[in-house]
């Protein structure tokens, strides 16, 4: 009983120290604000996702065309809009490259 409770006390102390660690390491930080994405960074992230989706879709379309799953007509009809989408996302990303990332 006594040994068990002593072990439990050690466990509790270690846990409390670990939980308090951020405050022990930085007792008086310059900023205690939790980072969050600025609206511009959110917009950039959305554009990056859009760019990846468009590039991925292009890759998939090329492959499906090569395997015969997508006919020549379907390929021609789809490849243009997908390229435009990818280019637009890339342009928008480049345009916003120098805007602030985090607030």
């Amino acid at each position, binding site marked *: 009983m006594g040994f*068990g409770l002593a072990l439990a006390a050690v466990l509790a102390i270690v846990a409390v120290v670990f*939980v308090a660690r*951020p405050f022990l390491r930085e007792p008086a930080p310059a900023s205690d604000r*939790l980072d969050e994405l600025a609206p511009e960074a959110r917009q950039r992230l959305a554009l990056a996702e859009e760019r990846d989706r468009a590039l991925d879709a292009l890759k998939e379309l090329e492959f499906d065309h090569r395997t015969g799953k*997508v006919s020549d007509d379907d390929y021609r009809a*789809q490849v243009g809009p997908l390229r435009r989408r990818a280019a637009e996302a890339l342009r928008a990303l480049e345009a916003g490259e120098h805007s602030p990332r985090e607030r």
Partner: protein
Amino acid sequence: MASLGRAALLIAFGLVAYALLAGSYAAWRKRRRLAHSAQNALLAAFPATLVASAILLIALARHDFTFAYVAEHTSRNLPLPYTLSAFWGGQEGSLLLWLVILTGYAALAVWLNRRHRELMAWTVPVFGLIAVFFGFMLCFVSSPFHQQPAPADGAGMVPSLQNPYMLAHPPMLYLGYVGLAVPFAFAMGALLSGRTDERWIVATRRWTLAAWLFLGVGQLLGSHWAYVEIGWGGYYAWDPVENAAFMPWLVATAFLHSVMIQEKRGMLKVWNMVLVALAFNLSLFGTFLTRSGIINSVHSFSQSPIGAWFMGFLVLMIVFSVVLILWRSSGGGDGSLRTKTKLESLVSREATFLYNNLLLVALALTILWGVLYPVLSEAVRGQTRSVSKPYYDFFLHTFGLPLILLMGLGPLVAWRKASLRSLAKTFLIPFAVAVVTGGVLLGLGFGSSWVGLLAYTFSAFVAASIVLEFVRGRSAAGGIFKLVSRNRRRYGGYVVHAAVVLFVIGVAGSNSYQTIRENGHLRIGQSMEAAGYRFTYESIKGVKGPNYTGFRTVVSVVGNGERFDLTPGQNNDPLQGTSFVASIYHDPRTLGDVFTNASLDKAGTAIDLHIFVKPLINLIWAGGFLFVFGALVAMWPDAVEQRRLAARYAAGTAPAGI
């Protein structure tokens, strides 16, 4: 010992309560150090719970009957592996298993994603909320460390649970159930933080696959255990406990498909949130079903110490997830779940995924109604009404057969839009294979079951479409390894589809075309026939095990060019009663089984022999290996993709600090 276990649980409870309260406050008020501290509390809860689990395992191994839990679920002569498996054999132990897996998963998932502060700030308290409930139950309602004066021996374990499958089946299921808490916590964290981009999906993709894999393997192990151990000749009885695992698996399957639409097309954000919430709440419901006693009756539920608590928590989590989803998808939030992209065509890959989602969810919900109806009927009308096999079979056929067909159609249809000419070209070979297969089977007399015939025909279609995908893909990619490497998820998924084809063929064969002969009353030397085999009762002898006595018969079997002996019998544990010991012959020619069990008549001079001849049943178990292989291929990390995602999110994250 017990005091250390209790203290460790109290420490774990304190830590997760802190993770919930301090974490919520920190996320709300944007306090960095407090959020970090709450995260540390969640990480520390795992070793604390691990200590409590170790104490229970040590008590079990030492047959320490001062622990009421150990005395209730084991006995001195129970072999060690089964003694240790009692950890999850009872209510208190299984709650502890939930908590230790949950805190372990939470610690790993949070640590791996610690750089994504904004998302993690709210994910930590959601994990904390779930863990607080289980911690509270273990500390204050249903403790595995309750002590008593030690009895001379324990109550032992039900003989049917003393089977190697039961060493793995429950932990596998729990790894799956609890695993669904990870995508749930991240999804709710995303809703609370407003980070409804794809970050939470990327973070939880493999967790969801792993949970889904564990749930699937757990069910297969449970089915095989039921088949070899329970002795009724089947492997799935639509029992509420079985359904409890099947429902979240179905919804998780729907999610794994629909999440691809969000990743590829940016659509279905709300639907994916709904599926994640539904899968997790069904996994909670599954635990509630198996642990609250509600399956037996409303009365045993009301007498269960955990029933009302569990129901309260389940309602809380459903309300919590529904309110959050509605808030973010409506004007009340920022509407960030709304998407502009629309379905371009009803004949496209995403459309087939959508149909598959509707069928999977419909099947899960009809099963849920089948589980709930007897309970509601008893609670409202005071009458116990059961929902039996025909109800479930009807909906399995109604939703399951189109699902098989979609499994073959989906891979052949292109994303966005497919023209009829393309479809005709790609469908030609699988369609021809299906028609020929169906025609040949009809000619061979398989028309006796239209469900079986359709299942086989559709399976042929799916198998042909998978082979076609690999063959065409291989030549386009320049080799099978390159093909799979460039898109592991897709081709791993196809391997899983192939496993499902094996399941379907095995289930259809062993159900629609099985032969059953029950209650053959035989004295020594007498015979009976079934499916071309002649079964002769030759002899009987007594057996004695470590904690049971029993008998084994010898039944010689001749027919269909085979000759073999079967030894069905029974075991009797003085503490836990009698159980069947089935004897099974695996026929390599039909990939099926000849399954027998036997009971002695009252006079002890004859046996009642039960025979089940089940063609193709072994494809179900073989499919299990393929299922695991396919899931592992789909889960395997892709270095190129990891780099791409790291670059994408580098813009939105800060260096690891919290």
